[in-house]
Structures are given as C-alpha cells and as structure tokens.
C-alpha cells in the first residue's frame, strides 16, 4: 500500500474487496449488482442525498437523532418511534463500539447478552454481525432516509454490508473517524481504508445510485476550534470527491458562541465548495450539518433541554441543512427512545419557529468569518505544500508536524500541542497555537483574546482556564470563570 490522493483502480479495489468480505461471515451476503437493483427500487423520499439537496434549496433545517441498540426488532421499534413520535426528518443507524473496532466476536457476545438480559448491552447496532438482510429489514420498516453513523477507523466491511443493506448515507472519514476514535491506527492506513469506502460509494454513484457521505465534523467534541474541524472536513471532501462521491455533508460541532457558530457554518460551506472547485470537482453537492453541543452535558434534564434548544436555535439561525440532536439523557447514558424523541421535539419546535429568521451579516459575524477563513486556508495550503501537491500525503505529514492538531484526541498520531480555551465572549480561541501554520497576525489575535479574558477574570492565562472550560457547560456556564 502506498498512499496517494488518486482514484483506486478497479483491479486493486476488487482484490481488497475479496479480503474485506471475508472478515466476517456476513460479508458473503454482499452482491454489488443486486444491491444496485435494490437501491434503484427505493422510493425517492428515502434517498438521503435527494432530501438534503431539497432542504438546501428550500432553506430548511432538517433534524436527525442518533440511535442504535443491539437487536434488529428493537432497532426497528426505536427508529419508528423516532420518526412518528419524534418527528425526525432523517434517521440514523448508530453502530456499537465493538463493531467500530472490528471486534465482531465481542459484538456477538453483546448481542447474546442482550438477548439474555432483555436490555441492550451494546451502545449501538452491530450491523456487520446482523448482516445485509437484517439491514434491509430495518430499512424497509421505516419511511425516512437513513444514514449509518459510527466512528470506525476501518469501515470497509461495515460500508459494504450497510450499503448493500439499502442505507443511502454513510458517515465518517479517514481522519475524522481515526483521530478522535482510535489510539493506534496509523493515518496512512485509515485514509487508505476510507478511500476504499469512498470508492465504493463512487461505484454506486457510477451505477446511478446516490449515496450521501458525511465527514464527522465535531472530532473530539470538546473545544475544537472551527479552523481545525473545517480543515479536516475539506480534506475529507477532497479525498471523497476524488473517489467519485457526489453528495457531501460537511459538519461542525456547536461551540456555543452564536457569532462564531454561525460564521463556522457559513464558512464551512463556502470553503468546501471553493476547494472542491479549485481542485476540479465541479459536480459535488455540498450541504452542512451542525451538531448540537458535543462536549460534557449537564446531568439535569431541564438544563440539558436548555443546551439542546440553544443548539437548535443556532442551527436555524445559521441556516445549517441539518442538525444532529442531543437528548436530555446525554450526560447519563444512551437515551431511551422517549428521551431521544424529546430532544427531537424541542429541536423541531425551534428550527420551525426560527425558520423565517436568519442571522444578519454583522461586523462581528464578518470578522469571525474572516478569521476562520484565513486560519483554514493557511492550514489547507500548508497541507498541500507538505504533500508536494498530494493532499493525502500532505495530511499524514501535517498531523506528524502538528499543522493539523485535534485537541484532547486519543490518537498517538496526533501531536496534541494546541490548547483551546474560550475568550471573554465564549468563542473558542487558542491559548496555545502549537505548530499551526498561522501568521503572526492570527497568533496575536488569539493571544489578545485570551489576555482580554484573563484581565476580566483577574487571573493569568493558564491551563486552568482550559480545564474550567471543559467542565463549564456541564455546570451551567459557557466560559469557565474562576469560582
């Protein structure tokens, strides 16, 4: 294997495919041509890419939950509840953590213990173990477009099975499903494995079947500055487009400061489209997703509703194409279906109530947009340089060098040198810029913002601010002020 940002050739793909489908017995259920036929018979309203494109055109903000349990019938019951009672616009198939790490034996144990104990012992749906036909059964039991959501560094078999299973959207990417979701997975390997997934999607597209792809925006979900998640989203979009992906949803995890969040969603769309065009991908439809606050939640359910609602309001005011919804159980555990529906309904109320209001382009918003664009461009351009024109190679080198650096990530392929913290208005800035390839102006901007906060709080800029900020939302604040 040698990594390049180049369309995988058919023969190589078929060779890998043989291996992949052997990783677990259900792999033998996959038959690409038959799957294409299956997809072509799906009603249009179940096609994720089509629904997203329609929403983008009409300016809607769609709502989507996360949801996965160990067993098939329970998964069906859960999804039907979320579409009926929860008024979801889009559905998920959230995969369990063993499957995410290709530990199918452990997933099997989880299935069996769930059967025995009568409650789900897995934190998601083990789709590989259940296989193609069970996926189709789920798909046929619901009425909405459904996306596979996970966190799998090597998702090749999962993609083969769930796409053959009739799902029309697949989340993840070689960076965004590695750095926050793995400890020892080399980036070369995960990017390469995700080229396979994207190529598979490309093959579906070439056969006339639309599959939506979504890089995972929030990364570690914890004080990730927009320029970092934007850079990853743009790179994964470029990598996907090269393999033939035509429908991409780029994402961002809400940070909590309205101006910064609106600026982030707007620039995410602008920059992704800009870079796709620049590199010659002209027929990719780009849509956006805002994830409601992804960090630590308050344990109190009423307070959690407050956080959820602010995420909903932000998504609507920013004009995101969809919003991923949290639940009042977030701080405690995987939600019941009722709690999940509650999160959806609070969100639905707000996106609908605010549908006719958009945030006007203020100076504050313009400034935020400019800073995010300048930061992101300097990162992407440096990645490109490091890769000597190859964005895949550049990405591996960029992570080594800390040119891209994800805060608090578990991966040892991430430098972990930058330190984010909130400024005095709650926007996420950098207390330590690490090796990010920023101009002096940008570095000074961050420094000045942090000093402004320090003066206000009458304490020194320090790691304690970062820690206070990590706990803050859970304790009912945005900025972690000294007590």
């Amino acid at each position, binding site marked *: 294997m040698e990594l390049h940002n180049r369309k995988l050739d058919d023969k190589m793909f078929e060779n890998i495919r043989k291996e992949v489908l052997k990783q677990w017995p259900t792999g033998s259920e996959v038959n690409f041509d038959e799957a294409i036929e299956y997809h072509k018979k799906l009603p249009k309203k179940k096609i994720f890419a089509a629904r997203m494109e329609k929403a983008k055109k009409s300016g809607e903000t769609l709502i989507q939950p996360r949801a996965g349990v160990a067993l098939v019938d329970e998964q069906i019951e859960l999804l039907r509840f979320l579409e009926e009672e929860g008024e979801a616009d889009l559905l998920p198939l959230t995969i369990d953590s063993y499957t995410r790490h290709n*530990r199918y034996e452990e997933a099997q144990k989880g299935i069996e213990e769930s059967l025995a104990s009568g*409650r*789900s*012992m897995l934190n998601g749906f083990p789709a590989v173990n259940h296989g193609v036909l069970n996926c189709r059964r789920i798909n046929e039991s619901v009425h909405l477009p459904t996306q596979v959501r996970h*966190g799998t560094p090597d998702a090749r078999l999962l993609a083969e099975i769930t796409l053959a299973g009739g799902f029309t959207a697949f989340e993840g990417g070689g960076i965004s499903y590695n750095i926050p979701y*793995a400890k020892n997975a080399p980036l070369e390997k995960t990017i390469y494995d995700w080229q396979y997934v994207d190529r598979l999607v490309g093959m579906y597209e070439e056969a006339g079947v639309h599959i939506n792809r979504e890089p995972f925006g929030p990364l570690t979900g914890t004080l990730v500055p927009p320029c970092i998640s934007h850079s990853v989203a743009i790179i994964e979009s470029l990598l996907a487009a090269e393999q033939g992906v035509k429908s991409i949803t780029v994402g961002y995890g809400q940070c909590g400061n309205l101006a910064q969040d609106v600026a982030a969603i707007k620039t995410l769309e602008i920059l992704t489209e800009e870079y796709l065009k620049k590199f010659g991908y002209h027929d990719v439809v780009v849509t956006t997703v805002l994830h409601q606050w992804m960090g630590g939640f308050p344990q109190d359910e009423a307070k959690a509703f407050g956080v959820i609602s602010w995420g909903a309001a932000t998504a609507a005011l920013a004009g995101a194409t969809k919003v991923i919804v949290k639940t009042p159980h977030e701080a405690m555990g995987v939600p019941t279906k009722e709690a999940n529906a509650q999160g959806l309904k609070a969100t639905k109320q707000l996106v609908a109530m605010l549908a006719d209001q958009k945030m006007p382009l203020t100076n504050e918003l313009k400034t935020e947009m400019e800073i995010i664009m300048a930061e992101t461009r300097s990162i992407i351009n440096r990645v490109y340089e490091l890769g000597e024109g190859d964005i895949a190679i550049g990405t591996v080198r960029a992570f080594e060098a800390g040119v891209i650096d994800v805060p608090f990530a*578990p991966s040892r392929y991430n430098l972990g040198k930058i330190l984010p913290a909130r400024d005095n208005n709650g926007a996420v800035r950098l207390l330590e810029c690490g090796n990010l390839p920023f101009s002096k102006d940008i570095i000074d901007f961050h420094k000045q913002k942090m000093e402004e906060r320090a003066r206000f709080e009458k304490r020194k800029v320090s790691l304690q601010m970062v820690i206070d900020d*990590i*706990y803050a939302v859970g304790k009912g604040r945005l900025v972690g002020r000294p007590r």
Partner: protein
Amino acid sequence: MKSKTLVMGVIGADIHSVGNKILEYALKQAGFNVVNLGVMVSQEEYIKAAIETDADAILVSSLYGHAEIDCRGLREKCDEAGLEKVSLYIGGNLVVGKQPFKEVEEKFKKMGFCRVCPPGTPPEVAIRDLKKDLGAE
C-alpha cells in the same frame, strides 16, 4: 510517607480521552504517582502496569457503556497475578443507558470494585476517596 502509585486508563474499546487527561492532571496535582495507560486499555495491560510499578490501586474508567462486558473477571485475574492488595476503582458512565445508580454500584461491587463512581464524579471527590482509602499523605 511515600506517595501512592495509581495505574489508570479507559478500558475496552472505549476512546473517551478527555476525562482521562483531566483526571490524570488532577491526580498528579494532588501528589499521586500516576501511570496513565490512556484509552483502549485491556485487562492485561492494567495488570502488567500494576505489577511493574508496584501500584496501590487501579483506576478503571469506562464511559461508553460496555463496562459490564469489559470488566468481567478483572478482579480474579488481578488476584491470580498476585495483586490481591491492589484496590480496584471504577468510574464513568458504566452501563448502557440511564439506570438507577444504586443498582449499578451493587453490580460492580459484586465484581470486586471497592469504589464505584457515578457519571461526572469530579476529580476532587476521587482524590478525597483515594486519600482516605489508601491512607495517603
């Protein structure tokens, strides 16, 4: 009195690294000798590290809900490895879903953990308990 040694890490296929980093920082600030194995730690890794560092306690974190499956047999394996005196702590979001904590606590106590900490237990509390239990400082 010599400072106590703690082995810590997030068990299983769990990658929740934020709390792990913060807990390490707080425990070190509090004067403990901390060996942090990070995320995705197997039972064997905890045991190996505890033997090597002559640890007083092992702090298992599990956020993602699979602790029941991941921790099965840990106490027994420790004992077999001669770590009968090492205390086992566990904290995080231990089961799948929001369940009455009393039941969760009992379940894990039966599995041989001496302290079971509910979701969101702040480091201050962990430190207080550790000092008390280990007779540190």
